[in-house]
C-alpha cells in the first residue's frame, strides 16, 4: 500500500470514529426531540402538574430549576472568580497556595452524590435550612465552584503577561492592573467556563435529591427557605416511580426535552460568547 493510500485509509477511519460519536449523540438528541415535541405546548410549559405528573404541565419545575441555577450562579460566580483572580494574579508559591490548589483538585473530584450527602449534612440539618432553595443552590454552587475557578484561571492566564508588565511598569498598583488590564479581557473566557459549569448544575439530580427537590409542590416558592420542584428530579421520578408508564412516557420525553433545551441554551450562549470575544480581542 502506498503511503498516500495508507494516509487516506487511516484518515477515513478516524473520521468514521468521530462521526460515530456524532451520530450517536445526534440520534439521542433526535429521539428525544421527536418524542418530546408533541408534548410541548403552552399549557405544558405554564401549568401545574396534575395526577402526579401524568397530566398537566411542568411550570413549577421549570421555575424551580431556574431558581436553583440562578442561586448557584449568585454564590459560585463571585466566589469562583475571586478565587481565580487570587490564584492567577496574587498567589505566591506559598503553602496556602498549594493547599488551595489541592482543595480545588479535591473538590473537582467529589462525586455529585457526595455533594448531596454533604449538603444534607451541612445546610439541611446542621444549619437548619431544611430542604430549601438555599440549601440546594449552595450545594450546586459548591459542586460547580472548581469548574468556575479552573476555567476562570485559564482565561486570566491567557491574557498576555506583557499587558500586566506594561501596566505595572507605569506605576499602576496590582489591583489597578488586574482591574483595568486583565479582567476586561479575561471576562468573556471566565463567563464561558462558568456557564458551562452552570449547564452542568442545571442537569444534576444527585445533589438536589437530598437537599431541595420536591416531587409535587403546586405553588411557586415564596422565599429561599421553600422547597421547589426541579426538572431533573421530576424526570427521575417520572422515569422510575410512576406506575402508569405508558401515560407518563410522553411527559418524560417532554420534560427531558425542556431540560436539554435549557442546558443547551446555557452552553450555546457560552460557546457563542466565547467565539464572539475570541474574534474580537487580538493581541
Amino acid at each position, binding site marked *: 500500500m502506498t503511503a498516500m493510500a495508507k494516509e487516506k485509509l487511516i484518515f477515513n477511519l478516524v473520521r468514521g470514529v468521530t462521526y460515530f460519536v456524532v451520530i450517536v449523540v445526534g440520534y439521542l438528541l433526535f429521539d428525544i426531540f421527536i418524542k418530546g415535541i408533541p408534548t410541548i405546548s403552552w399549557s405544558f410549559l405554564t401549568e401545574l402538574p396534575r395526577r402526579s405528573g401524568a397530566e398537566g404541565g411542568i411550570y413549577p419545575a421549570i421555575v424551580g430549576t431556574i431558581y436553583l441555577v440562578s442561586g448557584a450562579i449568585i454564590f459560585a460566580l463571585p466566589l469562583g472568580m475571586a478565587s481565580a483572580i487570587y490564584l492567577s494574579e496574587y498567589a505566591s508559591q506559598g503553602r496556602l497556595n498549594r493547599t488551595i490548589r489541592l482543595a480545588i483538585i479535591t473538590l473537582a473530584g467529589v*462525586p455529585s452524590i457526595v455533594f448531596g*450527602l454533604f449538603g444534607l449534612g451541612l445546610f439541611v440539618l446542621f444549619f437548619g435550612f431544611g430542604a430549601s432553595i438555599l440549601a440546594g443552590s449552595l450545594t450546586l454552587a459548591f459542586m460547580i465552584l472548581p469548574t468556575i475557578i479552573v476555567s476562570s484561571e485559564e482565561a486570566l492566564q491567557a491574557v498576555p503577561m506583557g499587558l500586566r508588565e506594561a501596566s505595572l511598569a507605569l506605576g499602576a498598583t496590582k489591583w489597578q492592573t488586574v482591574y483595568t488590564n486583565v479582567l476586561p479581557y479575561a471576562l468573556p473566557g471566565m463567563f464561558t467556563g462558568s456557564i458551562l459549569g452552570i449547564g452542568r448544575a442545571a*442537569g444534576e439530580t444527585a445533589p438536589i435529591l437530598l437537599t431541595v427537590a420536591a416531587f409535587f409542590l403546586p405553588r411557586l416558592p415564596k422565599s429561599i427557605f421553600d422547597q421547589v420542584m426541579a426538572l431533573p428530579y421530576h424526570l427521575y421520578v417520572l422515569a422510575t416511580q410512576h406506575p402508569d408508564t405508558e401515560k407518563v412516557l410522553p411527559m418524560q420525553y417532554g420534560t427531558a426535552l425542556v431540560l*436539554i433545551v435549557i442546558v443547551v441554551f446555557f452552553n450555546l450562549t457560552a*460557546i457563542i460568547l466565547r467565539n464572539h470575544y475570541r474574534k474580537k480581542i487580538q493581541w
Partner: protein
Amino acid sequence: MNTWRDKVIYTILVGSASTSIFIVLLIFFFLGKEALPFINDPGFSGLFNLRWIPVSFNKEIFGLIPLITGSVLVTLLATILMIPFGVLGAIYIAEIATGRERSFLKPFIEILAGIPSVVIGFFGLVVLSPIIKDIFGLSTGLTAITGAILLALMAVPTVITVSEDAIQSVPGAYREASLALGANRLQTIFRIIVPAALPGIIAAIMLGMGRVIGETMAVLMVTGNAAKITFNPFDSVRTMTATIAAEMGEVAFGSHHYQALFWVGIFLLIMTFFINLIAQQVLKKYQMR
C-alpha cells in the same frame, strides 16, 4: 489610598480562595462525623468483607469490596471505550477536519457534555440495553458494559475537548518542521504531534475517568446493581455511586447501614482524589515543557 484599597481587595480575594479549603474540610468532617461510629461498632474491618448485604434478617454485611470492584470494572471498561473515541475524535477535530467541519463538530461535542445524566441513563435503559442484550445474546442487557458505554459517552466530550486543546497547543513549528522534512500529514500527526501532546491527552483521559467514577444516575439505571465481585463485563455490577444514591433515602438515619454508606462516600472521594491528583501532576509536567 491605593495601598489601603489594594489591601482590602487582597483580603477579600484570599478569603474567597480559601473557602475551597474550608469546603473540603467540611466535606471530610461531615462524611467523617456520620461514618466514624462504624469503627467501634461493628468495626472497621467489616468494610473489607466480600459481600454487601445491607438489609438482612440474619446478618447485615457491609463489605465495600464488591462495590469497589464494581466501580473499578465499570470505570476500566468505560476508559477503554472512551480512549479511542476521545483521542481519535480530538485528532480528527484538531488536525484532519476542514474549517467548516471543525466549527460544527466542536460545539456539537461540547453540547454533548451538557446533556443531563438522567437523560442519558433513560436513553440507556430504553434503547441501549436491549441492543446490548441482542448483540451479545445475553439474558439481560443490564450489565457492566452497558453502564460503561453510557459513561464513556458522557466522558468522551471531556476527553475530546481537553485533548483537542492539548493537540492545538502543540507549537505549529513542529508541524511545519515535520512537513518540511517531507513527512505526510499522517506521519506528522502520529509521530510528532500526538507524542508532543501526550501528557495533555493522558490528563484528558484521567479527567474523563474522574467523571466516570463520580457519575451517578446513569449507572444507577443500567448496570443491574447486583453487588457481587466479578470482572466479567457482561455481568451485572453495583457501583459505589449508585449504592449511595439508591440506598441513602430509605436507610434509617444513624444505623450501621447509614454509616456504611458514608464510608462508601469517603472511599469514593479518596479514589477520585487520587485520579485527579495524578491528572494534575501529568498536566503540570506538560506545562513545564
